[in-house]
């Protein structure tokens, strides 16, 4: 392990491989989502490409977070939520009855809008999910803890107080700990629901840099209201809009196309700030 506490194990900024030959990892087909019988998201089909960052943009209430939650079946936790259509991860239907939800969520990590560390020590925050997924060797847990804390650039800040409560960290540090906790399970996909919106601009910048660093190694789907951020970090963008209280996918494509030469007039109006 590198002795320099500030060294990132993922290498320098924006070191991910370019997404020139996209391979779909998640295929969403005709996804319709209801809450209490009311349609929240209507007939969405799109591909999420391996190793790329896909940003979901659009106004509040257009179903971005619902779409994100459907990918790792967090929607199962909402009693009145119903889903039609198919979501394939690596060509396997996640709603198939043989699909193990806990294993699925291990493959697909999630980071929430508000940092939500457990009220445990920093060390235990990372060790608890590892223990529950069968990694119990103390040495192995310690090694993974160090690696992921280095990955999120938190090692140098917390290496001498791993036994302090995670709640004593600042908001930005807590959010990076949550990302580290998700990375510890070695997921393929990371879902991020506005991970910077509860943070101040400096902490937000640190987390944004971190997301760029993760590009290539993980497939990232990020919901963001910050269009400039989406433009800076994403390879692909999906623009959602709400019509008659129902969310719809308006346009999906390479980030550059969505922002510079969108096909739809609505997309152009939204990204230029004329609508939304």
């Amino acid at each position, binding site marked *: 392990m590198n002795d320099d506490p500030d060294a990132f194990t993922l290498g320098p900024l924006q070191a991910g491989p370019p997404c020139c030959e996209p391979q779909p990892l998640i295929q969403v087909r005709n996804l319709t989502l209801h809450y209490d019988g009311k349609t929240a998201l209507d007939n969405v089909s799109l591909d999420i490409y391996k190793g790329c960052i896909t940003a979901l943009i659009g106004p509040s209430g257009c179903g971005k977070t619902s779409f994100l939650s459907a990918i*790792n079946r*967090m929607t199962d*936790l909402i*009693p009145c939520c119903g889903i039609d259509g198919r979501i394939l991860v690596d060509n396997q239907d996640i709603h198939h009855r043989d699909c193990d*939800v*806990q*294993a*699925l*969520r*291990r493959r697909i*990590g*999630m980071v*929430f809008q*508000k940092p*939500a560390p*457990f*009220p*445990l*020590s920093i060390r*235990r925050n990372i060790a*608890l*999910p590892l223990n*529950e*997924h069968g990694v119990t060797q103390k040495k192995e847990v310690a090694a993974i803890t160090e690696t992921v804390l280095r990955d999120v650039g938190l090692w140098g800040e917390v290496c001498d107080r791993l*036994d302090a*409560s995670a709640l004593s960290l600042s908001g930005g540090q807590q959010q990076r700990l*949550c990302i580290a*906790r*998700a990375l510890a*399970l070695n997921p393929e996909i990371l879902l991020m629901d506005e991970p910077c919106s509860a943070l101040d601009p400096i902490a937000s910048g640190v987390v944004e840099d971190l997301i760029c660093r993760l590009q290539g190694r993980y497939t990232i789907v990020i919901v963001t209201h910050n269009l400039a951020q989406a433009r800076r970090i994403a390879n692909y963008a999906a623009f959602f809009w709400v019509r008659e209280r129902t969310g719809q996918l308006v346009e999906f494509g390479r980030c550059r196309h969505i922002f510079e030469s969108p096909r739809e007039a609505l997309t152009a109006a939204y990204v230029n700030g004329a609508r939304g």
Partner: protein
Amino acid sequence: MFESAALRTRRKIRDCVAQGLIYLAVMLVSLVFFWLLVDLARGGMTHLSWAFLTESPRDAGRAGGIASILVSTLLILLVALVAAIPLAWSTAILLAELVPAESSFGRSVRFSLHVLAGVPSIVFGLFGNAFFSIYLGLGFSILSGGLTLACMLLPILTSTAEAGLRAVPDSYRLSAAALGLSRTAALTHLILPAAAPALAAGLLIGIGRALAETAALLFTSGYVDRMPGSLLDSGRALALHIFDLSMNVPGGDESAYASALMLVILLLCINILAMKLAYGLQRKKIMT
């Protein structure tokens, strides 16, 4: 922005009066508590001694001590807690974690608990006597007294535990689920430790109520002031002893005072112990 001096003075006076009334209310509440404590201490201190705690009562309680009464009280309490805690806390977990809050099942369970909480203790006593003492053949015993108390504690323990579990932020549950943790793991490692202070507070209210109970025990654990040999022996609880000494035994006032003082001391000790345990559990969870 530029208000008159008179208006300002009037506002100041109103603030002062409101604050004064609030302080007065607080003083009155504290006064009642201190009056009770001082009165108990003045009447009971002279009689309270090591011998009083270690001897059995003689001459209907006028002489001797309260050793057998203390043992009976603690045994009844133990039986009640051992029977009530698993039932109450499992019910609370079911209501708070597994059943949707607005489901008809949850609502009917909650409604029956509310009704149970409102039942007068003498009715519990009669029920305990009919069911545990006569129908199950346990007779007048510490066991039937403890089980009757357990029925009384169920609604208190369940509703405080449910409120405590509901107060745990949903973000813990969501994060745990997103990390692929099972419901049991989330419950044992995160949600129960986070709710520990609320569980302890509920337990304290329950223990307070159990220690103070007289009517329900009159018909179930009985009246005998001998040292109990087993849980199937009859035993007199401390609250019942105080009631008997002050109402039925002429010349028993001093012993009654000392017993009451002992009851309050016992309650305070249990309070402090439970608080320490809950705090310790939380600390331990953070440090390991």
